[in-house]
Structure formats: structure tokens, C-alpha cells
């Protein structure tokens, strides 16, 4: 799993940073946040499809991580541990939202946001208007298709396809068996293939 690190930060191992955090050093936690903030935000955004909600949930996840870092024993990797927190926070939020919406499917209240064109990690020229419109349309179709999935299925497909996590890492993150992960992947893929086939066949 790739993380955002400067060469100086890369010298400090993740476990050392975690130990420093456990001693109450907020600077060390800041470095861990810098490493994972973009990926955590992107993961949440892909699940909730709203920039502000994703921002708030990412903040919430990191605050929870800071508060419970004393309980991190190092049995799993830090990123699996932080992803577990992220997933718990996000899935809980999605469930509460579903209850508020009266058990409706996850597709009505989702606000579709354009990806910020001021992306700074890969400097590139702004797309042409028609390209941007096309991209928005594709993104909208993907978001709608993902919104049809349950929170657990969303989490599994995104961790597998975007984060390229292994089955056992996903299972550890979600606190379920590898068989459950594989089964959820099966159904999530089938649903997305049915919903998006015409899009990815023609892109």
C-alpha cells in the first residue's frame, strides 16, 4: 500500500511512530496522518460520495485513532488498524443515514460532487469542457452503481479494486472471515458488472 511520505519521514518506521504516539507525541501522529490522509479520504469519499461528509468522517476516524492508539498492540499493520477504524466509522454513518432515510436504498440522497480540478499530486492541465462533462457523467454512473451496494459490499469492492488489499487484510479490517470477503466480492462484482457494463465497455 502506497503512502504519502517524504524521504525524511520514510526513515522513521511506522512502528516507531506508533510508539511515539503512545507516549503522547502529537508530532508523530501528525506524520502518520500525513502518510494516510489522502488514501483515507479517497476511500471514504468513494463510499459516501460527498466531499464534506468524507472530510468530516476522515477527521472523525483520525481522532478515534488518536484516542485509541494506546490499545494498538502491533499485531496487525498500522494501515489495517486505521482502515478498520475508518470502515467502522463510515459503515456506521451509512447505516444511520439509511435508517434516517427510512430504510431506502443507498441512492437517493447522495450528492454528486465534481472531483476537485485543482488536484496537486499530479500536475496536469485542466481537461477540456467536453472531457470534463464526460468524466462527470462516468463518475456519476459509478457513484450511482456503488450506491446500490450495501456498506459492507462497498467496502469490500473498494478495498480490493482500489486499495488492492489481500483477502486476509480486508477480512481483518472488516472483522469477518476470508470466505465472507470472497462471497461479498462475488456479489458486489456481479452487481457492478450489470450496472456499469455499458460504461466500461464504451470508454
Amino acid at each position, binding site marked *: 500500500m502506497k503512502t504519502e511520505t517524504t524521504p525524511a519521514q520514510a526513515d522513521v518506521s511506522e512502528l516507531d511512530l506508533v510508539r511515539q504516539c503512545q507516549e503522547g507525541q502529537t508530532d508523530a501522529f501528525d506524520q502518520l496522518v500525513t502518510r494516510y490522509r489522502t488514501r483515507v479520504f479517497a476511500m471514504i469519499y468513494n463510499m459516501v460520495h460527498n466531499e464534506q461528509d468524507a472530510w468530516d468522517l476522515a477527521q472523525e476516524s483520525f481522532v478515534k485513532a488518536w484516542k485509541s492508539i494506546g490499545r494498538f498492540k502491533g499485531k496487525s499493520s498500522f494501515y489495517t488498524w486505521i482502515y478498520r477504524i475508518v470502515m467502522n466509522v463510515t459503515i456506521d454513518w451509512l447505516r444511520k443515514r439509511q435508517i434516517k432515510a427510512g430504510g431506502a436504498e443507498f441512492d437517493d440522497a447522495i450528492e454528486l460532487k465534481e472531483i476537485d480540478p485543482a488536484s496537486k499530486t499530479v500536475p496536469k492541465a485542466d481537461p477540456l469542457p467536453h472531457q470534463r462533462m464526460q468524466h462527470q457523467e462516468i463518475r456519476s454512473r459509478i457513484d450511482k452503481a456503488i450506491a446500490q451496494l450495501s456498506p459492507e459490499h462497498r467496502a469490500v469492492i473498494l478495498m480490493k479494486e482500489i486499495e488492492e488489499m489481500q483477502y486476509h487484510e480486508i477480512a481483518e479490517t472488516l472483522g469477518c472471515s476470508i470466505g465472507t470477503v470472497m462471497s461479498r466480492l*462475488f456479489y458486489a462484482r456481479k452487481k457492478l458488472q450489470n450496472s456499469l457494463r455499458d460504461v466500461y465497455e464504451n470508454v
Partner: protein
Amino acid sequence: MKTFEEKWTAWLDDQLSGPELEAFEASLPDLEAARAEKRDAKKLGSFLKRELAAQTLSNEEFFSHQLRERIARETEEDQPRTRSSWWTVPRLVWCGATALALFLLTSIVFLSEEQPAEQSDYLTQILNTRVDSTVNPNATISIFESNKTDNKVTVLWTEGLQSLPADYAAK
């Protein structure tokens, strides 16, 4: 024992090998159709990766700044709760007992200074001898004196007295 879904997923992700792979492919009714679906699933995977991985966090530094502030604020908010734990139950009991003892001590000292006027036995006896017992057979006379530093009061208490001795009024 893996279910069909699990085996299918493992096959799509190239996680099956050796006899397990052969057995699974042999179990498929139409291997070519399955392979076409596998290609389709891989296409979906790379499409999702391409479209969704582009999502970035704008204002990264502001994100970290806001997080630092929130953590500092929440840590500060947690601290008074720790300090308030000084008021444990035994300490509260001790504080209550001490306050009660102080109150009682203060009350005793204060009341001892504010004693009611004492009855002057000596003056009462004198007055009683001066009252004529034939005229006032049931008369009793008492004198109370309060000897405060700034306020001296004498109270004459009479009962059953028909008349005062003539010379008493003069005194």
C-alpha cells in the same frame, strides 16, 4: 469447503492453482463463457481503479491543521474531567464531616458567649424578705440581670404581689 462464490472469486483473482484450478475449471459448464466473464470482471476492476483512484484530498495541510486543533481541544476537554475526579466519595465524606465539626464548634463558642441573663439569687432573697407576707401571702419576686459589656439590663419579675413596699418604689 469453499462455496462456489468463493471459488469463483478466487479464480477471477488468479488465486487458484494446481489441482484446485483444474478441478474448478473442469466443473464449469462453459469454460469459454466463464473466461469471457473473467475478462469482463478484470475490465471492471481496472475501470474502477482508473476512475476512483484519482480522488484527491484538497487542502491537505488544512486538513491536518484542523485535525491537530480538534485533538488539542478534545484532549483539553478531557482534562477537567480528570481533575474533577479529586472529589472522590471518601473525600466528600471527610469534607462533609469536617465542615459539620467546624459548624458545631463555632456554634458552641458563639452560644457560650451569648448566655441568657442569670437570675440573681441574692437580690431575690432581699426583695422577698421586704415583701409583707401577711398582705402578699403568695408573692414571689425574681430579678434577672444581664451583664453584657455594652448593655446592662435588670428585669424584675413579680407574681402574686398585691402591693409594692412603700420604701421599694423609692429605691
